[in-house]
């Protein structure tokens, strides 16, 4: 155990220099991209906001079913099959009934793998919808894969919109990730008041232009909507003239005539055409601008607007106009988002946490190396050298992988300092026992290393198991703890068996004739 090849020594030295270099690289800047690596600070250390959003897919499912109901209706009309009472129920299914003679035909059409009305996905071996019937009454509901597919696409869309909105606000390196099949994680480093972002993400931003109808007129195709400021209720047609999808740009402006803040917008060609046609027909009518089911304003149409642009006024402050423009530019979310978890750390606390974490690390470190010095003298120095290099290895590896360091992560490093000496203690204590029975120092040291190996490995593997489980089941900052604790085990074993053993070997071989080495 005490023999080292030259190559071995060389590799260990080179590796040590490498990790020392990467540790130092945290405090300096290099031009080279490959060298300029730094440990990322977690949100709990640098301050920032962590938001977990849940997408509410129910409206998407209902909307998709309503569309499907319409296409089923047209499809059977083409096939000359009469269907009755088709509707979407609250249990998220489409129900309808047919004449008894058509049952077989309808079943066949709805379960046709090449059909268009109920598409078949080869890769999942499943239809989009499950069709069941009790004689002439049919039920159509999403199959498991149909639903997963719908939710995945709605989540992907939502992430895109969230990213656009967050980018527009211009925060520093936001991190936006998918979590499961209905959640989005948004990390915003450096942001200590997430109010504005929360507001922006909390809005679906479904914009539509629709006519205000006379109260007495048709009630079927219209609905009562409240004004945004709660001042008024208007009966608005359900028919949408143009929706937010047809907007290409929106900006906050100051209206020179009224001195009001407004939001100006531009339509795409299709939107401009529709808007022009509707406004030319509807001069004198009121046009409601509806956002997320609330009327922002409902001006009277003075003249046809054919230029494809317009403006929305409605008691905006400059901030609210800016936000509305931003929402309109970035597009509507497919479904509402709800914030189900929020963690925000201010920069002051982050700074304090770094300071106290480092203080605890330094004090813990000094205590441990002093203890080892007093207990083992020359071997204490060896163990301490290994411990210091161990720290360099740990920090160096974290830097190399640009890992995220959290406050619990710092605790993990301190704990590693405390437990890392264990392996050397196990070995030294074993050597002491061996020395009692064996005159030859080299043989005794060799036996000490050999016989303690099982215990050292067992002791470290048990901690490693705990770290791995924490890594996979822990969340956020706790993962940071698992990472430092886990990497710490490997660096500890390396520093004990390559560095401390090398130093021990050099010392013992040089002093083999002395009476009592340890």
């Amino acid at each position, binding site marked *: 155990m005490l023999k080292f090849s030259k190559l071995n020594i060389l590799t260990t030295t080179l590796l040590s220099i490498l990790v020392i270099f990467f540790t130092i690289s945290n405090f300096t800047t290099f031009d080279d991209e490959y060298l300029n690596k730094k440990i990322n600070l977690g949100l709990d250390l640098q301050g920032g906001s962590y938001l*977990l959003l849940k997408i509410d897919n129910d409206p998407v499912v209902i909307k998709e079913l309503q569309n499907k109901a319409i296409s089923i209706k047209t499809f059977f009309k083409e096939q000359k099959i009469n269907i009755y009472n088709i509707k979407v129920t609250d249990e998220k299914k489409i129900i309808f009934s047919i004449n008894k003679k058509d049952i077989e035909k309808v079943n066949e059409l709805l379960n046709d793998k090449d059909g268009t009305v109920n598409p078949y996905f080869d890769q999942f071996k499943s239809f989009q919808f499950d069709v069941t019937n009790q004689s002439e009454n049919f039920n159509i509901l999403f199959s498991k894969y149909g639903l997963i597919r719908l939710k995945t696409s709605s989540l992907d869309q939502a992430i895109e919109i969230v990213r656009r909105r967050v980018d527009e606000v211009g925060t520093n390196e936001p991190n936006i990730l998918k979590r499961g099949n209905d959640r989005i994680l948004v990390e915003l480093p450096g942001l200590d008041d997430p*109010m504005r972002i*929360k*507001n922006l993400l909390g809005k679906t931003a479904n914009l539509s232009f629709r006519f205000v109808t006379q109260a007495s007129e048709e009630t079927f195709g219209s609905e009562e909507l409240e004004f945004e400021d709660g001042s008024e209720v208007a009966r608005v047609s359900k028919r949408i003239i143009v929706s937010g999808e047809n907007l290409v740009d929106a900006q906050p402006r100051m209206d020179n005539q009224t001195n009001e803040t407004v939001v100006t917008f531009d339509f795409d060609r299709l939107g401009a055409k529709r808007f022009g046609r509707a406004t030319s027909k509807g001069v004198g009518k009121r046009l409601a601008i509806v956002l997320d089911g609330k009327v922002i304003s409902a001006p009277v149409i003075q003249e046809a607007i054919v230029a494809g642009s317009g403006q929305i006024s409605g008691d905006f402050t400059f901030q609210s106009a800016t936000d509305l423009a931003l929402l309109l530019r970035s597009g509507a979310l497919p479904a509402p988002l*709800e*914030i*189900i*978890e*929020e*963690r*925000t*750390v*201010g920069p*002051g*606390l982050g700074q*304090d*946490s770094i300071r*106290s*974490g480092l*203080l*605890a*690390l330094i*004090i*813990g470190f000094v*205590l*441990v190396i002093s*203890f*080892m010095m007093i*207990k083992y003298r020359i071997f204490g120095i060896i163990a301490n050298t290994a411990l210091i290099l161990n720290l360099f290895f740990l920090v160096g590896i974290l830097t190399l992988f640009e890992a995220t360091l959290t*406050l*619990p992560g*710092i*605790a993990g490093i*301190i*704990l590693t*300092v*405390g*437990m890392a*000496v*264990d392996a050397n*203690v*196990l070995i030294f204590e074993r050597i*002491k026992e061996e020395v009692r029975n064996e005159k030859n120092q080299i043989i005794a040291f060799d036996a000490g290393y050999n016989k303690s190996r099982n*215990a050292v490995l*067992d*002791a*470290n*593997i*048990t*901690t490693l*198991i*705990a770290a791995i*489980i*924490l890594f996979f*089941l*822990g*969340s956020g900052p*706790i993962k940071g*703890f698992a990472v430092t*604790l886990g990497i710490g085990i490997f660096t500890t074993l390396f520093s004990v068996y390559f560095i401390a053993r090398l130093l021990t070997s050099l010392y013992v071989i040089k002093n083999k004739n002395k009476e009592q080495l340890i």
Partner: protein
Amino acid sequence: MNLNINFNKYYKLFNIISIILVVLSILSILVKGLNYGVDFKGGTLIELRINDNQTNISTLRSAFNNMNLGDVAIKNFGNDNDFLIKFVKKEKDKNLIQNIKKDLTKIIGSVFEFRRVESVGPKVSAELLNKGLIAIAASLGAMLFYIWIRFEWQFSLGAIIALFHDVILTIGIFSLFSIEINLSIVAALLTIVGYSMNDTVVIFDRVRENLKKHLSIKIFELTNLSINETLSRTIITSATTMLALLSIFIFGGEILKGFSLAMILGVVFGTYSSIYIANPTLVYLKVSYRTVVKEEK
């Protein structure tokens, strides 16, 4: 150092004490319950710093009680100017934090800052709790598996009983003193599981070695011998780990207090249980030379 302390002389007494403590812990957990933090209970936590000398905990208390937030718990956090405010508000309110800031400014002026805000919905907190329990169960299971392939079943049983003992006593103390249980406590518990195992395994390694070496010594004296032989290591490692943990506890800031406290308790229990729970199990199970050799044919 040639130690020969007769640890095993008192093992029955300590076993009885341990059983009583475990029962008390379980009773406390069942009757008094656990003080879950927002991670596991849901709700909102605000760490508040006051920058003047006029505002104290009672002004804050009356201020928050007027905000219609339900049951608000307020306590000092580390020093006189920092406070931890916790509540669970049933109705959803998107602008909750902003409204609180506004209301608070009206009452005490803008002399405060929110250093930390954590808000966890009921669904997420239930998931986190579930995940935490799974993590603890998984780590216990993994340890059981590891020691089962490394040692004979008698050793596994001893180590696992010791593990449960340590985890239950730690949680029991948290329950008894109503110390908050949050995500970092779960991390601490898992680390305790690792540490307790580590300590037990080192002694077991020695017991197994000695079983083969000293064929005539009975298990009662043999475990005692093994404990003595590894005692200096046990003491030194506990000492250095404890130094590191005390450093976190004293200097590491308020946020790490619970975590380091749990770890400190765990190290104490882990060291104790290796000697007085794990090893006596081998005695009760009448482990002998045969136990080890039979398995290694």
